[in-house]
């Protein structure tokens, strides 16, 4: 679906603060290789789970690599899912992108290491210099398991130790970052404070090291929106996000520097728009096989009320807080 841009309260707020929300030429290609995941987290904006069957087909995967090869300005490949490691050609995608000289980041849920045939993922990541961005909503077992499922915290700690054991967060070339999102309908804490507390707790209690921690706001779409509605807190959460609108977050919004590729090859301004099937501005390339960086530059970003999730408080992006 190609979006006709909806007028929205978000558009009004951004317009009043900084004018049109437009993207620069993308420097990151974020590729969602499929919705299959070994977990089924309550906040997941992808509705990912073990029962999902959407998988990026071969021709789309090749088109992603082709876009990288002919676009040197795309310096980063950001691989996400689902659990992207479950894609049958995941390792080939990573190794070929690295061979092209690109930085590769993988959104890693940690427990996928315990799936059949995935035990050597830490060694694979290390051998290819992959930056791993690991999901850990909270440093306490109780909070993490409440969101991600019973036993996930213990499995995540074991997986973090395995990453540390191959050099992650110890060798300067092997970067291990954590991502924390609130376990409920509230904004994340100050990123620096949570990073400090998480580092102290994980080091003392579990002997785990990491480089940085990113806070991310839960997006009011898909499974998390369903949960909000069932809990009767959707309206209050949306009001909280909107009341916390912070124009200082706008310059760093991830939609301004990346293009998101769906498993079927369609292009979006971000992973959230992808889940809402809110496509790029009309007249722009809509599929990865037509990728043309110059034609994507200065595009007007497609927005909706969910965008308040990225501009609330200190802001939220795949790289954490923005302001």
């Amino acid at each position, binding site marked *: 679906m190609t979006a006709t841009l909806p007028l929205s309260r978000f558009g009004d707020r951004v317009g009043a603060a900084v004018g049109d929300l437009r993207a620069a030429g993308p420097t990151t290609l974020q590729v969602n290789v499929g919705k299959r995941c070994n977990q089924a987290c309550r906040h997941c904006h992808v509705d990912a789970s073990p029962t999902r069957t959407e998988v990026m087909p071969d021709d789309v995967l090749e088109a992603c690599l082709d876009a990288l090869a002919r676009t040197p300005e795309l310096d980063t490949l950001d691989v996400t899912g689902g659990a992207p490691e479950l894609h049958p050609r995941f390792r080939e995608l990573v190794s070929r992108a690295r061979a092209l000289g690109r930085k590769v980041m993988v959104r890693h849920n940690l427990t996928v290491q315990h799936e059949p045939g995935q035990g050597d993922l830490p060694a694979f990541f290390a051998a290819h210099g992959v930056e791993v961005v690991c999901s850990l909503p*909270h440093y*306490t077992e*109780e*909070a993490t398991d409440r969101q991600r499922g019973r036993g996930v915290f213990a499995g995540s700690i074991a997986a973090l130790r395995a990453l540390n054991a191959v050099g992650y967060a110890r060798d300067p070339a092997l970067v291990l970052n954590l991502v924390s999102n*609130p*376990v*409920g309908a*509230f*904004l*994340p*804490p*100050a990123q620096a*404070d*949570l990073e400090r*507390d998480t580092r102290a707790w994980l080091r003392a209690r579990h002997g785990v090291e990491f480089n940085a921690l990113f806070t991310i706001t839960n997006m009011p779409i898909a499974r998390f929106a369903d949960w909000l509605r069932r809990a009767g807190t959707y309206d209050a959460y949306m009001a909280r996000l909107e009341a916390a609108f912070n124009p200082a977050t706008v310059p760093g919004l991830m939609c301004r520097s990346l293009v998101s590729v769906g498993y079927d090859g369609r292009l979006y301004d971000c992973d959230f728009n992808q889940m809402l099937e809110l496509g790029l501005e009309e007249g722009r390339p809509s599929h990865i096989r037509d990728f043309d960086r110059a034609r994507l530059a200065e595009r007007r970003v497609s927005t909706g009320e969910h965008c308040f999730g990225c501009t609330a408080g200190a802001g939220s992006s795949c790289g954490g807080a923005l302001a």
Partner: protein
Amino acid sequence: MPAYFDDQDLAHFGDLKQHAPELWAAFERYYAAAFEPGLLSKREKVLIGFAVAQVSQCPYCIDSYTQQALEQGLTMKHLAEALHAAASLRAGIALAHGLVAHNVDRKISM
């Protein structure tokens, strides 16, 4: 009036301003200044607010400070520890007041 306490009330807290605007403005300045991070962090001040709300049994404050504490990265496990610290102090205070009875008894009993 369906109930004395309603979770929508807090949004109208500022309606009280109309009755004494200058005093209200002074209160707002004082309250904001008291919760600015200083030698104590914002999170420590929010936890103090949470504990005071609990022992003062103010539903508005408990609602507000629970949400603020969660947004400071604390969980219900943290808040339970704060709650017990506050509640045990209240228990101790009740017991300490027993000294008054103890002293009265010493004074007037044979």
